[in-house]
């Protein structure tokens, strides 16, 4: 049944978007086994369950959802920091999940990651220059002096100065550290950068600086981003397309404009209604979700969102909603449509 959805994805996508996707994720699943102390299987956590999306060259795909919905796990499986349970990810015509470790090593250079916490993402005992040089060493790029040149270039690109080369991470602020984290990802000249909540640990004013930097670098270096965040108001500023995840599943997937102006899934509507608007007298109807996010160990039957959905119907409790293209290029998995 779900394969059908993917097929639909594939057949409809090329008509609207003629360019071939850089990364195509189909039916990605990551299930964690929970074992009791005796090693018996107690439950399976479906952290990521059947997620499919496409990344197009030079564009940004935003992945939003609340904590624990599996968006970070999705990002990590793509770099095989976590091995996926099922599914495929076609990068440049090859399924990266099927590659051997040494084959995947070459692809790692093209797929880099920026991490959430700028405080723990840099080794406190290494000077910045050495931290930035390390990816070059690992991928065997350049001689010593060439590597130093590359490090200096990238420092400049992310808005840092040469004299920062010999500093330690603790001498920098959070925003500067995130710039260093970004520099580490970009120094090997990647095609795809997975940004795992790159701004959520930063002040709002610094957030916009980093977002602007990300956009500028995207234009300069022709980068493709997978931008993971829980804050839809941040994601909409940078993304060309947004995917909304809930409890390990993709519930809505649409171009940013279409998703913001016309959110179809009740969960997306609730997320958007929580974004503050800078108009003091503007009264908006807030959709407050009742209850807590269910345990992914024991997800609800039928539509996973029906326990909290304000528009839940009878069918939602029993039948799993198939993802449909409701508006042009706007996909949603909900029985309302």
């Amino acid at each position, binding site marked *: 049944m779900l394969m059908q959805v993917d097929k639909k994805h594939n057949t409809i996508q090329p008509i609207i978007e003629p360019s071939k996707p850089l990364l195509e994720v189909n039916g990605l699943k990551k299930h964690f086994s929970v074992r009791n102390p005796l090693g018996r299987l107690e439950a399976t956590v479906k952290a990521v369950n059947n997620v499919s999306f496409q990344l197009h060259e030079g564009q940004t795909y935003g992945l939003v959802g609340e904590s624990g919905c599996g968006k970070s796990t999705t990002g990590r499986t793509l*770099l095989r*920091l976590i091995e996926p349970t099922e599914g495929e990810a076609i990068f440049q015509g090859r399924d990266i999940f099927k590659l051997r470790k040494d084959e*995947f*090593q070459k692809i*790692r250079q093209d797929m*880099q*990651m920026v*991490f*959430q*916490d700028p405080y*723990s*993402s*840099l*080794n*406190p*005992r*290494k000077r910045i220059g050495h*931290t930035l040089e*390390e*990816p070059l060493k*690992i*991928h065997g790029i350049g001689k010593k*002096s060439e590597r*130093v*040149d590359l490090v*200096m270039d990238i420092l400049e690109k992310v808005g840092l100065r*040469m*004299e920062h*080369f*010999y500093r*330690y991470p*603790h*001498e920098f602020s959070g925003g500067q550290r995130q710039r260093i*984290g970004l520099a*580490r990802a970009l120094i090997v000249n990647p095609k795809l950068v997975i940004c795992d909540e790159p701004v959520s640990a930063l002040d709002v004013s610094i957030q916009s600086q980093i977002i602007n930097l990300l956009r500028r670098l995207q234009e300069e270096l022709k980068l493709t981003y997978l931008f993971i965040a829980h804050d839809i108001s941040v994601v909409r500023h940078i993304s060309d397309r947004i995917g909304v995840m809930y409890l390990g599943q993709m519930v809505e997937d649409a171009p940013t404009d279409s998703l913001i102006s016309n959110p179809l899934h009740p969960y997306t509507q609730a997320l958007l209604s929580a974004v503050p608007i800078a108009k003091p007298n503007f009264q908006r109807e807030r959709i407050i979700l009742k209850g807590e996010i269910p345990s992914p160990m024991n997800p609800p039957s039928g539509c996973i969102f029906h326990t909290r959905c304000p528009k839940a119907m009878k069918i939602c409790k029993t039948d799993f909603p198939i993802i449909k293209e409701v508006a042009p290029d706007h996909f949603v998995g909900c029985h309302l449509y």
Partner: protein
Amino acid sequence: MEALEKREELIVIKSNLKKQQRQLFIRRFFANKLAVVGLAIIIFLILLSILGPLVISHDPYGMKVDDRLGAPSSIHLLGTDEFGRDLLSRIIYGAQVSMGVGFAVAAIASIVGMAVGLYASYYRVLDNVLMRICDGIMAFPAILLAIALMAALGASTNNVILSLSIVYIPYIARVVRSAALVVREETYIEAMKAQGASSWRIIWLHIAPNTLSPLIVQATFIFANAIIVEAALSFLGAGVPAPDPSWGNILYDGKKVIFTAWWMVVYPGICIVLSVLGFNLFGDGLRDLLDPHTNQAKK
């Protein structure tokens, strides 16, 4: 062309920074009075053990039966032992043995223990095997195990070092492992994995340097303990074999005559206390100095 200029500028920045940091390092080390005292004691003891034998006039092995248990005097500055041997000479020769054993044991146990701890923390299966072996070693009292090993290996100074190293490896391994388990979860390790770094690189270039602080503290403790346990071994006849002097066997020889010849226990005792104190103070200072975070706080 531009790149070359930049590189030259960077070299200037580097040399300036290195100079600054060296000055800062020295200034901060000397600001820590206790560490300076520790270093002074260590230097004094090392000089004593190296230069002492050239200066002293008495043979540490020369017995004089009519001069047994002589009180400190102008001829024998620290008195004589129960065979009439000059105590000062024996303490100076003993310094070489005791400090040598302490230092060698601390060094061997640190290096091997670090490797064991790091690999145990990184590989789950290895963790169970290595840590159970460590538990086994730690289940024996240190002295008992050392005696057993000495009995098996035969009495010699090298075997004292070997057996004490085996005894203390688990103590280092445990400390390093627990520190490494914390470091392993840091994002910068994940970032290295995302780059596809080899496990050798991750373990030795990223995890290992971040476990140094607790390791140094533990190593100074082991240095001190090794001197004391060597003394206990000597007492039981399983340590540095007689007639070679070590602070430990002088002390234990003195125990038998503690009421008639106090100098036989007081002077080697002072030496043991001094060396242990010196290394502990220096170790603490070194730990603070090597931690980049405390650098920041004290600037």
